[in-house]
């Protein structure tokens, strides 16, 4: 397979196709990395698609937009493009993945970018399980789930649920005797 040579310097191997739009006419050139850089093209290693860039400001905006769109949250795999469609974040980590893109948006919506309200504080470990657990719905919910798991023949899940039900029933029995 013969390699294409850069159309500017005629020496380097052409690695990309540069499409430039000027006064409604399109010019296509095959360039090497050096000549492309000289044209102001940013080359990102690992980029799969052939870069399509031009001198006109308009297309550069489009380029920037599509770079933003492809940003993906490493945790829930939501892309920024998908976020823009539905306007819903996918998980807590999205806020780190999209932070530079979200800040201007939050500023527009709220006129601010910093939280000034209540601060989240986790209770001390010993306080988390303090107080008598009285709710009966947790047990009811687990029992219903157990029944469903048995019906679906998911026995591992059923065993896990049975253990939890026993633990909770025992816990509330102990509390009741203590009172």
């Amino acid at each position: 397979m013969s390699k294409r040579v850069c159309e500017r310097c005629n020496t380097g191997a052409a690695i990309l196709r540069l499409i430039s739009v000027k006064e409604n006419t399109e010019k296509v050139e095959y360039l090497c990395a050096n000549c492309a850089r000289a044209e102001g093209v940013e080359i990102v290693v690992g980029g799969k698609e052939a870069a399509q860039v031009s001198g006109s400001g308009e297309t550069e905006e489009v380029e920037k937009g599509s770079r933003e769109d492809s940003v993906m949250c490493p945790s829930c795999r939501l892309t920024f493009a998908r976020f823009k469609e539905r306007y819903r974040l996918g998980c807590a980590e999205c806020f780190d993945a999209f932070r530079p893109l979200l800040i201007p948006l939050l500023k527009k919506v709220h006129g601010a970018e910093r939280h000034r309200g209540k601060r989240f504080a986790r209770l001390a470990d010993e306080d988390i399980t303090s107080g008598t657990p009285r709710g009966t719905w947790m047990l009811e919910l687990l029992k219903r789930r157990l029944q469903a798991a048995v019906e679906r023949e998911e026995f591992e899940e059923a065993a896990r649920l049975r253990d939890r039900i026993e633990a909770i029933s025992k816990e509330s029995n102990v509390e009741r005797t203590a009172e």
Partner: protein
Amino acid sequence: MTLDALVRQTPMWLDGSGAYADVIVSSRVRLARNLRHIPFSSQNKTADEERVVDEVLSAAQHVRDLNQSTYFDMKQLEEHDRQLLVERHLISPALALRGGNGGVMVDQDERLSVMVNEEDHLRLQALTAGFEPQAAWQMLDKVDTELCGRLDIAYDADLGYLTACPTNVGTGLRASILIHLPGLVLVQTVDQVLNGIAQVGLTVRGFYGEGTEVVGSLFQISNQITLGKSEPEILETLERVVRQIIDFEYSARQTLLRDARAQIEDKIWRSLGILANARVLSGQEFMNLASAVRLGVSTGVLKDPSLVLLNELLVRVQPSHIQRMAGSRLDSDQRDQNRAEYVRERFASASTTSRQTRG
């Protein structure tokens, strides 16, 4: 508490008490919260949803204000019964539609509720009668500290509480005031008065919240901004603006009774007459007539019925409530007849009682 018990009781937030009860029906505050390590509802799976329910309910067992409450599992409820919870303002229309592993914890007097697996993992809500957003916030703040303090909540030092929708980021707080503005509607200045409030970061919604219609001159006024202001600051702005709207409403009522007393009294008495005697009553017609009667009661034109009765009817004559009370499936014609009958009975017994007291 069963659904049947729920249907029979009048929720505390409709007891007609609280400040400015002649204009403000109720105040509601809600907080949006998410668990850090589980995807939000748009990206999660059934197993994720179940983990959310497990973690939230396990934590809630240790919270004094919640551990006597009832958990309604959306999966276990028929569509009509989910709708019934919407009619009582205990869940959002979105949760009723979504179904899945969603649910809601409701306390005995329906002042507190916690939706699980709505758009956010947790939506905590406090409802009070009258113009009492601060009281609702204090109640909710405490529950939030005790419930969410037991969970690993998605919180960022810069952005505050992280929520599925960017419009809730920060405090996650939405405060809404359910306000009755028949005076402003009648003098046709309500649009003018309400249009200005967007500039101070507030918004107007319908009876059931976002995206719902305005019926019976009942509006919900709530904050739009959740980031960059503290919770008390958000509530203060809301209170200040609502107080102005209340003044506008009072002066509209005064103008009406001064310039068109006969016409207004006629409208009020006719509305009462229809409500007390109709044999077929659609939901929409009820809301419009009840609005006129409410105006009559709050301006002193009418002695009966009480605001509590009007409030009670506000939830009880809605389609799913009518259906549940009948105990069988009804088509809309039959519902309109049942509604008329129920309203008639309640009005008749209310006026007998007041005649006896006066007698």
